[in-house]
């Protein structure tokens, strides 16, 4: 007979492969997990499966053609990608964007935030096992997509901005529909909260899971809700205002624990703040042109700049070098928020159970199209 201390089962560390074809990795993300029993000891993140070389392509397209490449990065928040790129080029060209265009851009960006957060909420909750929330959240996301469809004709890749302004003014009656949507959305948020916020299973699965401290999150370069969940006050809309954000009142929700539950609460609060911003923008929507004075042939003077906006996922930055001679950028670099947040996955995962891995992938809200570009 074996002695009492001898293990009945082999306790070697086990390496398992998760993805790239896995329903909970939100795209083609592959994780190589080293497990000790059910605990994750180490993790390697493998990506690049949808690398399309958007940065390289951009060096060979002219300035306006790049807008539709940016749609394909974070494809659940295409309007904010457009916005970040257009603003960066406008900064290089030193073009003034009309106030009406800036207001409409803000409305579009905030609608996009609601749409993107709806998708996040639905998939995140479904990963943890709450199927109903997915159906509820997609029901509201559909309304956002309808609004975008009415504005620009597309439901996913909008191509909805131009350098210097907007391609289209809002259709007549559209603002009333946005207002109606805001009212609907406001009544639906308590439904989500009723399903999740005090749900015991939800609390067990998210509280104290994936805790990261503020200084660690800052050093790791986390951005957006994961950074704010750790109590760091950082929102590009407030710190470096762009579009028309400096004209509106809104609050930046902060977390205290830095866990998955806090990040969930923050995003829920961001729904409310987005609605608040949209209402203010609709109330104060000025008349006027929607296109600034932009030269026919875009040829920014030689120089380089970095400009960031707050996409639903976090700080989305563009670094553009113009050599002043060609009609295309010499170098275009995208600072993808999902990429930076994904880097924080390993510190979050290590020490947790395998079952929490899907929960943590959900909480950082990644889109692989943006990670890989």
């Amino acid at each position: 007979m074996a002695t009492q201390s001898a293990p009945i089962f082999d306790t070697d560390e086990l390496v398992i492969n998760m993805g790239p074809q896995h329903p909970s990795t939100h795209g083609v993300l592959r994780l190589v997990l080293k497990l000790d029993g059910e605990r994750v000891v180490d993790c390697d993140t493998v990506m690049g499966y949808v690398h399309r070389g958007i940065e390289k392509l951009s060096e060979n397209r002219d300035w306006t053609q790049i807008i539709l490449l940016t749609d394909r990065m974070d494809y659940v928040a295409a309007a904010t990608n457009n916005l970040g790129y257009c603003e960066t080029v406008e900064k290089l060209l030193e073009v003034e964007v009309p106030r009406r265009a800036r207001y409409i851009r803000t409305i579009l960006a905030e609608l996009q935030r609601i749409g993107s957060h709806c998708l996040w909420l639905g998939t995140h909750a479904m990963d943890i096992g709450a199927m109903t929330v997915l159906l509820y959240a997609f029901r509201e996301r559909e309304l956002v997509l309808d609004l975008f469809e009415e504005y620009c004709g597309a439901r996913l890749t909008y191509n909805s901005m131009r350098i210097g302004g907007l391609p289209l003014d809002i259709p007549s009656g559209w603002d009333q529909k946005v207002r109606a949507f805001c009212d609907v959305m406001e009544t639906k948020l308590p439904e989500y909260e009723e399903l999740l916020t005090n749900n015991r299973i939800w609390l067990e699965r998210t509280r104290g899971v994936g805790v990261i401290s503020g200084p660690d999150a800052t050093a790791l370069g986390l951005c957006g809700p994961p950074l704010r969940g750790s109590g760091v006050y950082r929102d590009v809309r407030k710190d470096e205002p762009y579009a028309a954000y400096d004209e509106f009142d809104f609050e930046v929700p902060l977390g205290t624990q830095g866990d998955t539950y806090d990040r969930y609460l923050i995003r829920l609060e961001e729904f409310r703040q987005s609605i608040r911003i949209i209402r203010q923008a609709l109330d104060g929507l000025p008349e006027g042109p929607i296109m600034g004075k932009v030269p026919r042939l875009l040829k920014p003077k030689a120089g380089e700049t970095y400009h960031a906006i707050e996409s639903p996922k976090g700080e989305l930055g563009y670094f553009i070098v113009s050599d002043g001679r060609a009609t295309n950028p010499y170098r275009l670099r995208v600072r993808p928020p999902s990429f930076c947040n994904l880097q924080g996955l390993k510190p979050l995962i290590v020490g947790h159970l395998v079952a929490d891995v899907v929960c943590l992938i959900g909480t950082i809200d990644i889109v692989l199209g943006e990670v890989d570009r």
Partner: protein
Amino acid sequence: MTDDPKPAGSAPDGPAKPDAASDTPATPEPAAKPAQPPAAAAPAAKPAAKKPAPKPKAPPEPPKGPEDPAPPDDLEPPAFIAALQQAHPDAVEQLSYWVGDWTVIVKLEALIDVATYLRDADDASFDYCSDLTASDWPPREKRFDVIYCLYSTRRRHRVRIKVRAGEEDQVASVSGLWTAANWFEREVWDMFGVKFAGHPDLRRILMPEGWQGFPQRKDYPLEGPGELLLESPMEWLRLRNLPDEAEIE
């Protein structure tokens, strides 16, 4: 275009081609030009006199490097840059200012000193490495610019630092200062082939592991290396090293 052919026909003469008109004074020449290359390609020696015709088609010379415009005289750099110059007088090569952004161009050897200073000094406190990237300027001897976009969550200001590195140079890794730099540096290595000394895990990140070449370099073709490289890298390398294209069957 189809509904009014007359303005479309007249438009190219007016605003569209002022440069082309000044380069080629005689109009028949461009007409002869398309016929010329196929005939000239095979013998290659005979019509030397007709050579000037394709000149306007030649791509412009690649730029020698970024402009890095100097700040205007009446603009004072932020206090932390002045303090940095005092603390590390030899480290800063040049200051640059463009559309509201300050860039400090730093000597390659002094990168870690400057980065540490900027992170820890109280009036700078750049605790957030917002972005780290590179750009490639092939004609220059030190062909790479490695660019660090820093942000301070406490002071809420930005700065960029930049070092210039040659193909063989080792850039000191800042992943010890900002953990965020880990993946950024991996991506720069993957895309440009800039080596980072002291990086904990310098592997490719977006391209597959065995990939040959560095896609973001300017001399890397946009369409990629072609199927052959992916299927059999050794054969691709052999063909690439052949002295004459004629040896390829």
